[in-house]
């Protein structure tokens, strides 16, 4: 059997402080394909990792505008163009009456954008991940902090990356198979 492909190198850290500094260093080294995994949210870690601002707000904004337009035009088209009915002697185009549905659809589409946009950006659902091949990685849901640098990163080099992790105070370093 052919040798299994290497996914990347996994380093284990003991504290938030250690992983915070490690992330800053990995970021400054210029790695692109890597991630940090922690048992709980560590404030400021996104900055230490150099992550760009989230795309979610733009998805939500776009979806909310779409929902608002959809809700308004649906009502306008049905009550003014397609099947006009006179209600309470009010003008056919009574925009205040359209507002509740327009508002609700704006919120609904915005919420869809937030939830499904989040799924998309996080590539969910992901049923398995190469990092689960590591026995020690299970501690990520308990008390250990991990950084994984992927083998596809152009800067990835078995020797150099290992040296970097050692310098940063990793308590355990291993290669993870695909």
């Amino acid at each position, binding site marked *: 059997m052919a040798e299994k492909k290497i996914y990347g190198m996994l380093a284990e850290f003991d504290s*938030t*402080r250690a*992983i*915070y*500094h490690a992330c800053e260093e990995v970021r400054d080294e210029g790695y692109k394909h890597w991630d940090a995994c922690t048992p709980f*949210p*560590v*404030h*400021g*870690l*996104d900055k*230490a990792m150099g992550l760009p601002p989230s795309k979610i*707000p733009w998805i939500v*904004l776009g979806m909310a505008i779409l929902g608002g337009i959809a809700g308004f035009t649906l009502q306008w088209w049905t009550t003014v163009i397609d099947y006009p009915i006179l209600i*309470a002697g009010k003008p056919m185009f009574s925009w*205040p*009456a359209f*507002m*509740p549905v327009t508002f609700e659809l704006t919120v609904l589409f915005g919420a869809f954008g937030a939830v499904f946009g989040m799924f998309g950006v996080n590539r969910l659902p992901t049923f398995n991940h190469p990092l689960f091949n590591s026995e020690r990685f299970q501690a990520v849901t308990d008390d250990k902090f991990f950084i994984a640098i992927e083998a596809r990163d152009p800067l990835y080099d078995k020797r150099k990356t290992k040296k970097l992790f050692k310098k940063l105070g990793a308590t355990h370093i291993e290669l993870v198979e695909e």
Partner: protein
Amino acid sequence: MSAHGHAPTITLEEATLPKDSILRKAPLLLAIVGIIGLALAYVTGGGDDGHHKQFYYSYVTSLMYWLSIALGGLFFVLCHHGSRAGWSTVVRRIAENFMITLPLFALLAVPLIIGMHDLFHWSHADAVANDKILQAKTWWLNSGGFIIRVIVVGVVWTIMSVTFYRWSTRQDEEGGDELSHKMRWAAPLGFLFFALSATVAAIDWMMSLDPHWYSTIFGVYYFASCVMMIMVAISLASMFLQRLGLLEKAITAEHYHDLGKLAFGFVVFWAYIGFSQYFLIWYANIPEETMWYAHRSTGGWEWVSLALAVFHFIVPFLFLMSRHIKRKKFTYAIGCLILAFAHYIDVFWIIQPTMEHFGHSHFSFHVADILAFVGIGGLFLAVFVWRTASKALVPIKDPRLAESLAHENF
């Protein structure tokens, strides 16, 4: 809490106005400006007939404007304790200093009793005698009841604001968490009295100016402005203190961001309530309800209504949506000023069209409006600055101060 660096702290010295600060002389100056402003408003707002109708309308407009900040301050403090908040500890003293102006407003409400006949159509016995609608409302809208409610509301505000202020400042000396528990215990009770008293004030002092009209959502409408305005006031006061070199490290972009989010949220809430009120009346189309809006869509008032929709919703909604706008002091200050201006349009739009109650109301802006605004604003800020100068600028021994200093959004 970020994983690096030391936990931020603040000393009593850093959180106290310097002895030689110019602000220490400001309260007296502001009070003098306030009294002169009100006196001039009274003179310019007088009519040829010896009545001071214009003055009282300008007065109640400005009163409701500045009162919204004081009531908002009380609500902010109650929310802080009631929800056991951590992030807002660092700005709570500023909110408390706004809140402690409530005893002043209890006094400033007294002219409403003196000018009752100039303000309130329902206080004229001859008008009520020929009016079925007003007769049906006399159980609430009568002079005796009005006076009692002004006194009760004033007493409730004074007791609540002084109690919470005393507890909070006592903790500055004693420390410990006992007073925090006490305030948390009292906050839910405070909400009850806050809701009732603010609603009574909004209905009696603003809504009953047009006694034929009513809106069951009116108290909530004013409440929405109160909460929006306290976020604006805390933000602007923080920026001002930081310009003087105070609390520079204590109040960060994180706090402005959160205050901005709440201001944004409550401007949207205001629009939601305002539109709901309009929507139901527009739909039902009952004359004594639609009259209120009819007065505001003719005689130049239609432009004020339009300005209200633009500056109280559309512009701030689009402007304050981005997090970057709220996290930069300069752009966020612009947003706050837009909201502060819009709130004036709001109270003016509610109150002033009722001045020519049975004539045809034309939009007009009187010099007494400016003078009364400066007058009540001067007195309000005099109390605020006086309290700011007398105590620490943050609750210095609050158990959650460290959490607030280190506060970070995601």
